[in-house]
């Protein structure tokens, strides 16, 4: 029997107060995620329970109990408080998946500051625009990433502290840099946690849109109420589980369900700080006796590509529940997992903005392969007519996924961009930007994005951001960026480029442009193909018509071209 039980019963009796009661939270009281994920678990008598099993790519292993989580997060909180960090300041975590990332997240929240996790593979430009937008006061990073920070620090007057967590004394600390060793600093037993309340800002995650620069999605401490109960019911986490979330905390899955969900439930989770390899992943599951595994379709398809034979080398019988997030999970992947693991991956649908899972295939209920599942109790989801933003009254119609606002982990705004936030709502519905249909049994089926944003390997990439960066390359005159189909990543970035006089297309130039974007933005944003063209399709007013290029890549009808410039 799953934690969730019957869908009908849960929907009928659901209230977010259920989660509040389980967390012993009463409206109006102090609520601090850092405290809930460490001190509270210790107070429940689980101080010695293992919270985090961490393994590096060399095989190095570290184990932290809930009491360690409490002490080390206190230590980090005191350290930044002593630096002068105040409640409401933005503190960035720019690190690989090392213990300091997970524990630092809790420590920052304990001070009342806002934690801003950023993917450590980001290049200097991606890092700069996010730190500048948030006016970040301090950044935690590692030796291997500090050079990217050094390149941009002079343009960031608000960035007062660059905290290096693995400084080894071999080189000299530079301007604004300070060394901090979590495990060598004297542990702080008592830290006066800042009294945050339900609506106190907690986490700032950046996400990409079609136009404009990335937007900072602002969440609050009350998001815990959603993240706790969805982790319990959708991921089916129980006290004796060993949980593995493969997402990087630079993205929202890695914080909502890689930190807050499991730690607030007092579950043991493990982390593998290593690049992808099928053998390494299966070995990790076997070695740690992982019971609940939350991963992404891209990873699942990569495992499928590695073949079935390799699975036979490992004992994966500990696996009890499998779930997936980031992009639609294709039916083949679900059927494959049933065949090789004896159980299906359960697709979960949500966004950085929603903060928690909103539509899902629930444990203990039949999975319809290829379906997103049904709305979580307490979430009102529908498919809207794009012309009037009214829900379609009958099933089967394709429209926009709309969510009725009001659940605890819904974003509160986009940082310094209230207008973009307001634009996400129509007729009382939050517009996800995704299109779907609902079948007669109430299951949602993903159809595609409603905009030009590219979902590659479960991460959103803004075509605008890539086009802007391409124009900074010395050879590029104009560019248009679209997605193209990919068997592993669902979509990848493709760029159409016209060249400046004096440059001619070549394979070496293509590689040079690819590497330019990879270093400037991120590996995700790097075009995996560049097509050199003489001109780009434009409207008579000069706007590039991405949709024509997109249709060409996907083998779709081009549609209306009446506004095409050279038509």
């Amino acid at each position, binding site marked *: 029997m799953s934690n969730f039980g019957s869908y009908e019963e849960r929907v009928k009796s659901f209230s977010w107060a259920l989660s509040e009661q389980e967390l012993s939270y009463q409206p109006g009281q102090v609520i601090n995620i850092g405290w809930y994920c460490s001190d509270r678990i210790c107070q429940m008598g689980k101080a010695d329970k293992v919270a985090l099993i961490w393994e590096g*790519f060399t095989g190095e292993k570290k184990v932290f109990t809930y009491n360690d989580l409490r002490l080390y997060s206190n230590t980090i909180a005191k350290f930044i408080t002593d630096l002068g960090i105040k409640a409401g300041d933005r503190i960035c975590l720019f690190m690989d998946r090392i213990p300091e990332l997970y524990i630092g997240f809790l420590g920052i929240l304990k001070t009342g500051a806002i934690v801003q996790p950023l993917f450590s593979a980001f290049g200097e430009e991606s890092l700069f625009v996010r730190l500048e937008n948030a006016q970040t006061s301090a950044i935690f990073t590692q030796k291997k990433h500090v*050079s990217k920070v050094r390149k941009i620090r002079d343009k960031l007057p608000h960035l007062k502290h660059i905290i290096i967590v693995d400084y080894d004394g071999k080189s000299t600390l530079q301007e604004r840099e300070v060394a901090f060793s979590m495990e060598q600093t004297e542990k702080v037993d008592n830290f006066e946690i800042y009294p945050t309340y339900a609506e106190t800002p907690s986490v700032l995650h950046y996400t990409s849109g079609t136009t404009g620069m990335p937007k900072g999605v602002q969440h609050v401490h009350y998001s815990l109420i959603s993240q706790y109960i969805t982790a319990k019911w959708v991921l089916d986490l129980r006290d004796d589980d060993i949980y593995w979330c493969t997402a990087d905390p630079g993205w929202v899955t890695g914080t909502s369900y890689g930190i807050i969900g499991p730690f607030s439930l007092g579950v043991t989770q493990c982390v593998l700080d*290593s*690049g992808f*390899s099928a*053998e390494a992943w299966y070995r990790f599951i076997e070695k740690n006796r992982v019971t609940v595994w939350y991963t992404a379709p891209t990873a699942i398809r990569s495992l499928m590509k590695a073949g079935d034979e390799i699975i036979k080398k490992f004992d994966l019988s500990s696996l009890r529940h499998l779930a997936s997030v980031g992009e639609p999970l294709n039916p083949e992947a679900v059927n494959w997992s049933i065949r090789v693991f004896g159980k299906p991956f359960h697709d979960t649908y949500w966004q950085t903005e929603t903060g928690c899972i909103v539509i899902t295939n629930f444990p203990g209920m039949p999975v319809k392969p290829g379906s997103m599942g049904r709305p979580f109790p307490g979430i009102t989801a529908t498919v809207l007519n794009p012309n009037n933003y009214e829900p379609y009254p009958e099933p089967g119609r394709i429209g926009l996924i709309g969510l009725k606002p009001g659940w605890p982990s819904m974003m509160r705004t986009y940082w310094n961009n209230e207008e973009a936030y307001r634009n996400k709502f129509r007729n009382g519905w939050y517009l996800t930007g995704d299109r779907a249909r609902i079948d007669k049994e109430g299951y949602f089926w993903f159809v595609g994005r409603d905009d030009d944003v590219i979902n590659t390997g479960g991460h959103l990439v803004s075509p605008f951001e890539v086009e802007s960066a391409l124009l900074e390359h010395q050879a590029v005159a104009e560019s248009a960026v679209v997605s193209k189909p990919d068997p592993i990543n669902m979509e990848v970035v493709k760029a159409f480029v016209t060249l400046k006089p004096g440059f001619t297309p070549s394979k070496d130039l*293509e590689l040079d442009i690819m590497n330019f974007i*990879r*270093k400037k933005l991120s590996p995700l944003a790097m075009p*995996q193909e560049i097509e050199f063209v003489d001109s780009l399709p434009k409207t008579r007013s000069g706007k590039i018509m991405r949709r024509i290029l997109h249709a060409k890549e996907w083998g779709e009808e081009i549609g209306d071209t009446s506004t095409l410039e050279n038509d």
Partner: protein
Amino acid sequence: MDELKEIIKNYIINEYLEPDSDPITYDTPLISGGIVDSFSMVSLKRFLENKYNIQIPDEKATPEAFDSVNKIAELVREFVKV
């Protein structure tokens, strides 16, 4: 000194490592060690194809085959005599 391995190693140092990174050897894990991720692997594969005028089929371009300079050199030698 193996010229092919040196070319691959130097390309990785110049393109994928930050200035203060630890030095790499022919055996340093590249993919599992997080130096080259699956997206960046595409540009590394493209470099090898351009440099040696070869085509590495996608099914051969696995994370395991790209996990060290030694393994990459072995892969390249399947397609070209260097």
